[in-house]
C-alpha cells in the first residue's frame, strides 16, 4: 500500500495555499484606503457609491469601517489615505494638528432615539433630545451606549452633559456602555429592552429591530454632518494624495452628490448632500447645517430647509 505520509501531505497544504493565494491578492489596480464609520458601510452607502467612482476613475477604494475615533487614529498613524467621518470637533482637531490637509462637507443626516415600542420613559412626545434623555434617566430605563469613542458616542456624551446628567456615574446600572459598534449596540438594545442613540442610516438598514421603534427624531441637536479629510502627506509621505483628492472631489462634485441623494434604504433617503448648493468649485465650506437650533421635524424636512 502506498504511504502518503504526513510529510508528503505537507507540500500539499503549501501548494493549496499557493494555488489560492491569487484570490487573496485580487484587485491590484490603483487603490486608496478610506477609513470611515460603520454607518456608511453597514447602510450600504459605499456599495452604492464606490462602484460608480471606480467606474469613472479606475481607482478602487478599500474601506476600513470603524468608529470615527478609531478611523482618526488609523489616519494619524498613516494607515489610511482619506477619511469620511462624522464628528466635527474631532475632525477640526485632526486638521489643526496637521494630520489632514483639508476638511470638506460631504453630506448629513440625523441621529434618532430608538427604544421598546411601549416607550416606558415616554420620550416620544418630548420637546427636544435633551428632555428625552432626562426622561430616560428619571425613569432609570435601560440605555445602551456605544461606549467606544465613536462619533455617535461623542455626540451622546455631549447630549448627556447638556442635560446635566452624569450618565457615566450610572454605568453598570441603567446606563450600559457596550464598547461596541452601532449594529452590535442595537442588537444589545433590542435584547435588553433598552433605549439607544443611533444614526438614521444604520437604523434604517438594521435587520434585527424586534419590537424596537424609532421614538424620537427631528431635534437639530441631532444633526449628523459627515466630512471628508485627505491625510497630510507631510506627515506620511506614502499617502496617495492625488488619488485621495480625486475621491473627495468626486464625492463633493455633481456626480457624487447625485449618487448620495439617489441612495435609498427601504424607500427612505438616509443621506443628504451638504451644502445644498455647491457653487464654490472646491466646495470648501465650514458650516454645519443648522447646528444649535432645536426644532421638531423629520430629516426630510431638515433636508428641505437646512440652516
Amino acid at each position, binding site marked *: *500500500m*502506498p*504511504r*502518503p*505520509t*504526513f*510529510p508528503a*501531505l*505537507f507540500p500539499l*497544504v*503549501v501548494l*493549496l*495555499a499557493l494555488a*489560492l*493565494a491569487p*484570490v*487573496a*491578492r*485580487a*484587485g491590484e489596480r490603483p487603490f486608496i*484606503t478610506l477609513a470611515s464609520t*460603520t454607518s456608511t458601510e*453597514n447602510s450600504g452607502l459605499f*456599495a452604492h457609491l464606490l462602484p460608480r467612482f471606480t467606474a469613472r476613475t479606475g481607482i478602487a477604494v*478599500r*474601506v*476600513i*469601517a470603524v468608529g470615527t475615533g478609531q478611523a482618526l487614529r488609523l489616519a494619524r*498613524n*498613516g*494607515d489610511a489615505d482619506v477619511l469620511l467621518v462624522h464628528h466635527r470637533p474631532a475632525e477640526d482637531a485632526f486638521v489643526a494638528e496637521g494630520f489632514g490637509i483639508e476638511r470638506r462637507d460631504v453630506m448629513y443626516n440625523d441621529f434618532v432615539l430608538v427604544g421598546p415600542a411601549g416607550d416606558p420613559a415616554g420620550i416620544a412626545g418630548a420637546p427636544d433630545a435633551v428632555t428625552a434623555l432626562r426622561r430616560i434617566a428619571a425613569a432609570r430605563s435601560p440605555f445602551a451606549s456605544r461606549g467606544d469613542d465613536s462619533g455617535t458616542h461623542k455626540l451622546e456624551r455631549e447630549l448627556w452633559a447638556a442635560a446635566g446628567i452624569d450618565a457615566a456615574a450610572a454605568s453598570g446600572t441603567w446606563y450600559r456602555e457596550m464598547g461596541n*459598534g*452601532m*449594529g*452590535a449596540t*442595537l*442588537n444589545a438594545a433590542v435584547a435588553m429592552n433598552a433605549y439607544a442613540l443611533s444614526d438614521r442610516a444604520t437604523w434604517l*438598514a*438594521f*435587520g*434585527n*429591530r*424586534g419590537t424596537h421603534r424609532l421614538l424620537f427624531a427631528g431635534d437639530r441637536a441631532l444633526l449628523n454632518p459627515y466630512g471628508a479629510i485627505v491625510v497630510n502627506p507631510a506627515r*506620511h509621505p*506614502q499617502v496617495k494624495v492625488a488619488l485621495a483628492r480625486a475621491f473627495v472631489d468626486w464625492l463633493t462634485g455633481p456626480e457624487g452628490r447625485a449618487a448620495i441623494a439617489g441612495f435609498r434604504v427601504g424607500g427612505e433617503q438616509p443621506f443628504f448632500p451638504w451644502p445644498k448648493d455647491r457653487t464654490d468649485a472646491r466646495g470648501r465650506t465650514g458650516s454645519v447645517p443648522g447646528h444649535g437650533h432645536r426644532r421638531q421635524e423629520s430629516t426630510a424636512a431638515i433636508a428641505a430647509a437646512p440652516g
Partner: protein
Amino acid sequence: MPDLWEAARLALALIVAGDPELVEIVARSLAVSLSAVAIACLAGFPLGALLAVVRFPGRRIVIVVVYTLMSLPPVFVGLLVYVLLSRSGPLGVLGLMFTPTAMVIAQAILVGPIVTALAHRALRGLYVEYRDQLCSLGARPWQVAPTLLVDGRTELATAALAGFGRAIAEVGAVLIVGGNIAHVTRVMTTTIALETSKGNLALAMALGLILLLIALAVNAAVLALGRDARGT
C-alpha cells in the same frame, strides 16, 4: 429571532446557488488560514522536536513559555501585528497593513505555539519509547529529531488540525490587521461579525454553519489521508 433551521436552509441555499461572493470569501479564508498553518508548522514542528530531544539549560522555561503562548488572545496578537506593520511602526515601510499577508502573519503567530506545544508533547512520548534503541545505534539527539518527525506524523497532523481550527475560527486578529475590506481582506469570520452588526442574524448564523462545514471537509480530508497512510 432566527432559528437554527432557518439558518441551515439559508446556508444550503447559498451553497447550492454557488454564491460568487461566498465562494470568494471561503477561498480567501482557506488561503489565509492554510498559509498561516503551513508557516507555523514549518517553524513549530522542528522546534517541538528539538524541545523533545535536546537538553539545554532553560529548556523547561522555554516549554512553559510555548505552552503559555497557546493562550495568546487573538485581539492582542492583532494589536501587536498592527503596531509592527502600521505606517508609523517599525515595519511600516513594507506597506503590509490591511493585506492578506498581514492576516497570515497574525494567524501564524497565533497558531505557532499550538503546533509547537502539541508537537513537543507527541514527540516527547515517542522519544521516551525509542530513546534507548536509537542511542544504542549511536544516534545523537539532533539526528533523532527527523526520525521522530516522520514517525510522529499522525500526531503532527492532529497538531496541524488543532492549529487550523484556531486560525479559521478567529476573528479578533484578522479584523484588526485586515480591516475587513470587501474583496480584499474579508473572510468568513469577519463577514459573520459584519452581518451580525447589520442585524442580519439568520445570514450570520448560516455563514457560521458553512464555516463549520469547511472545517469538517478539511478535517475529514486530513484524517482520511492519515488512514491510508496507516493502511487501516
